[in-house]
């Protein structure tokens, strides 16, 4: 009973651990920025008041559109990556054929995919979708495949000794075992997708944060660029925050 109580206290400590340091770190950065705004001219480092004023005046439809693009493309990249990972996991032969192609796709820089998309596709939405899937898909595939391959053999053998069906093996061992890999790859790919989508939106679109940034650059409005950057960071942190929350819930056993 005493140990059970200790466990409860330990759980509570884990919930709060690290939150204070996180807040202090961000606050220190904000203060340093504000100090820098007094030293440097506003076009180089605008103060928080200027950034906030600009922020309020932004058209957030662009942010909404960017988020939708990122989430739809990531969902598709995840579905394709997951499916291929399962196929490759089940067949070593197929894996040997697909892996070189995946490595090739991964080696192509994001900017090249943007250029290919401009040359190959007319529809701007599809260009962005294509670029995001090409850049993020292989990451999902490799991480999920590794997650499945890293399931300890002794756990598989233990479960098999109970003689489960294939469906039970997947539900009770494989899926729960790859949850950490899935969450990690989502966190990484969210960051990647938010960075890449803005580049992709610079070309041929009339909406999204990338377009808005390009527009602000045309107006030489640095405060607007900073404000949009702040929005992008907020979007990324919020999306990653959702994944962290899921992680805290699904991986509380860690």
């Amino acid at each position, binding site marked *: *009973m005493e*140990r*059970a109580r200790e*466990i409860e206290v*330990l759980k509570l400590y884990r919930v709060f651990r690290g939150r204070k340091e996180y807040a202090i770190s961000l606050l220190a950065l904000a203060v340093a920025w504000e100090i820098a705004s007094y030293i440097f001219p506003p076009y180089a480092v605008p103060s928080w008041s200027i950034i906030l004023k600009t922020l309020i005046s932004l058209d957030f439809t662009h942010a909404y559109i960017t988020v939708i693009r990122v989430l739809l493309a990531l969902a598709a990249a995840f579905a394709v990556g997951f499916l291929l990972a399962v196929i490759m996991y089940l067949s070593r032969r197929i894996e040997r054929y697909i892996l070189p192609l995946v490595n090739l796709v991964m080696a192509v820089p994001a900017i090249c995919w943007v250029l290919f998309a401009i040359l190959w596709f007319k529809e701007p939405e599809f260009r962005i979708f294509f670029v995001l899937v090409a850049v993020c898909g292989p990451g999902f595939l490799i991480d999920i495949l590794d997650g499945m391959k890293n399931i300890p053999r*002794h*756990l598989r*053998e*233990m*479960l*098999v*000794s*109970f*003689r*489960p069906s294939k469906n*039970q093996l997947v539900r*009770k*061992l494989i899926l*729960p*075992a790859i*949850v950490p890999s899935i969450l990690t790859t989502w966190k990484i790919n969210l960051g990647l997708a938010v960075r890449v989508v803005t580049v992709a939106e610079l070309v041929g679109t009339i909406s999204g944060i990338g377009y808005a940034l390009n527009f602000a650059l045309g107006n030489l409005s640095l405060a607007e660029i900073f404000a949009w950057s702040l929005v992008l960071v907020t979007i990324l942190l919020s999306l990653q925050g959702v994944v962290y929350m899921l992680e805290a819930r699904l*991986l*509380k*056993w*860690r």
Partner: protein
Amino acid sequence: MPRIVVENLRKEFGQQKGEQRVVAIEELSFTIEESEIVSIVGQTGCGKSTFLRILLGVDSPTSGRVLVDGIEPYKEFDKLKGKIAAVFQEDRLLPWRTALDNAKLGLEILGIPKEEQRERAARWLDRLGLAGFHNAYPSELSGGMRQRVALARALAIEPAIILFDEAFGHLDEVTAARLRSDFLNLSKQQRYTTVMITHNLDEAIESTNRILVFGRPAKLLADINLSYVDKSDLAEVYRLRRLIQSVIESNRPLESVGAQTF
């Protein structure tokens, strides 16, 4: 009819082209009766665990056969569902499941109704001294407690045959002795047929009523019936221990070793 029949069993590894052939089991033939508690001892790497994996059905022999209740476990794998369970050296708990959920695992696979799963798993955990720890994750439990959960997981399906692969080997002696004693008490009530692989001769002598001594590669060097041994006579137990040790070290059958040593 014996519960387990082993006939001319042989297992080789590396049968693929270009691989070096390794004989893990040279030749094994013996039977184990219902509710017998048998231990298998031998040198490290003598094929004890390979034998257990074949018995469990997760590996198959190169030649010969094993019958469990008349069924070859590696051929008709699903027919032994719910009849056989194993406890391994490592606890092999699923880290994302609580103690209760780990103990329920086999019952879920057997398709037992949910309420009964919960009741049976909880009962076994309580019986093994884990009341109050049902909701703890493996990372929150000590090695001995985790091994108790593993034992509860195996016992919860109420198998006819239970296999131990050095299940108490990495625990401290006090915890191991307590766990062994708990299991033996249960075993007397439930009449499990038990096969216990161990490298601990004291454990084998104390816990079982028959010892099979394996050579390296696995062949039967001795089949010792302990029903005639007075376990309270320390001198007799010491002599027996020495005898088994000599058989294992010489890697020769009991008759020849016995003639030299005694």
